[in-house]
């Protein structure tokens, strides 16, 4: 059932994001072609349009993520979603996994556009790419790859936490105490909850980092110095992500209040 939920969520998000991502790539291609012609004004206009589309792609990704959760689960469509033979956990996870995958696709499109601009630079030569990778592979040690892997895992966890905090901020509006005023309930409460969570989160994690048996501000001389601090960070992020996930699940499973 989870695979089916994911499939439907993935295609529902695609309708909103795929056009803007394709538009972003098209704008990058056109801008680069114009840059090749050396016509300054059209190139500048195209570059500005590309910049605007890139910002729009970022905003639309965020808005789509929020809307998919709020509209599909907590508005009228919730009557269908919450009566499907699936668990609340599966509903939340399908939304999060689809959002993470689509954000990854968006990031890939952004990097692709950036690569197009690098290709167009006057100093660029294809040999630079092979030189770059040759340098990396000849100098990198086993510990370096571990650090890279930890950084990637940490980034994914941070993004997952960001998503779950958005879900939590929207879900708290289901609690009976926020029933009274619709403006407060739908505008101020989620925003306030999001800010409050991150204030507490930053405060608690910085306190924990002081209690850990290593100096987080110590000078890094080699990549292996980062292994333990990064791993500790991942462990903390994992715990917080899990807690927030279960909190969202608890609110939606026990305090769902569809109008």
């Amino acid at each position, binding site marked *: *059932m989870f695979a089916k939920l994911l499939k439907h969520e993935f295609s529902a998000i695609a309708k909103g994001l795929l056009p803007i991502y394709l538009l972003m790539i098209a704008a990058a291609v056109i801008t680069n072609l114009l840059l090749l012609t050396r016509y300054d004004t059209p190139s500048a206009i195209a570059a500005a349009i590309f910049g605007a589309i890139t910002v729009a792609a970022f905003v639309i990704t965020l808005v789509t993520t929020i809307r998919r959760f709020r509209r599909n689960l907590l508005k009228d469509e919730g009557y*269908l979603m919450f009566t499907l033979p699936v668990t609340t956990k599966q509903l939340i996870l399908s939304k999060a996994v689809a959002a993470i995958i689509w954000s990854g696709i968006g990031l890939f499109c952004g990097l692709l556009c950036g690569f197009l601009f690098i290709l167009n630079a006057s100093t660029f030569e294809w040999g630079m790419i092979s030189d770059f990778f040759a340098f990396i592979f000849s100098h990198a040690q086993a510990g370096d790859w571990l650090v890279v892997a930890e950084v990637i895992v940490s980034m994914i966890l941070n993004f997952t936490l960001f998503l779950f905090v958005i879900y939590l901020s929207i879900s708290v509006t289901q609690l009976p105490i926020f029933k009274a005023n619709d403006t407060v309930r739908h505008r101020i409460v989620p925003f306030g909850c999001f800010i409050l969570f991150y204030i507490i989160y930053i405060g608690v994690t910085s306190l924990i980092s002081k209690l850990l048996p290593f100096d987080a501000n110590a000078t890094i001389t080699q990549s292996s110095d980062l292994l333990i601090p990064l791993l500790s960070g991942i462990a903390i992020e994992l715990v917080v992500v899990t807690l927030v996930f279960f909190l969202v699940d608890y609110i939606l499973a026990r305090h769902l209040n*569809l109008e």
Partner: protein
Amino acid sequence: MTSLIEIKDLTKVYKKKPALLNVNFTAEKGRIIGLLGPNGSGKTTLLKAMNGLLETEGTLLIDGSRPGVKTKEIVSFLPERSYLDESVKVKRMLSFFKDFYADFDYDKAKSLLKDMNIDEEAKIKQLSKGNKEKVQLILVLSRKAKLYLLDEPIGGVDPAARDYILDLILKMYDPGSTVIISTHLITDVERVFDDVIFLKEGEIVLKGDADTIREDHGKSIDELFREVFQCSLSC
């Protein structure tokens, strides 16, 4: 006979005001039950509770289980609101139901859409309010569920379509399944009820076999409803 629904002392309180208060009833398999009451009497709250959309106090068992994944497999729910995704085509909703409900009859749904002149290629947002309700009803009735919970199924459709919908409910009705129809349009729907439950301010004020109630009171269900809820309707 095995009870499909068992409800004992079911209570739901919103801000100290009870929406349901000590509701008790059982429903046998193979019955069409009218859940009757004016607006705000608790009909929708009761149906939401049976769908696991609300946490309640008391006992609520559907086919022996508390509302959850297991009961959702056998309950087909038609809410009063439109839960269709406005941005998709009608046929996409059919695929959605086919994916999630093992008991969904895709061909039957297509045939019913054709009967009602609804284009499956049309986007939901292009449909009229009445047609959206019909699509939703077709989706719900195209399942071979054990329990159908229909919240105001004829509320938003024109009088001509009401008879068709009621006939459809009777046609699709399987003797092994139970149907609960919540409505306040009793005149149109009275003929299909085996049992009725009158709900007033969250409490059951009358329940029983529809024919027996008619005989005992010498009145139609509709007349009795107007009598019982006279104050509620005029106040």
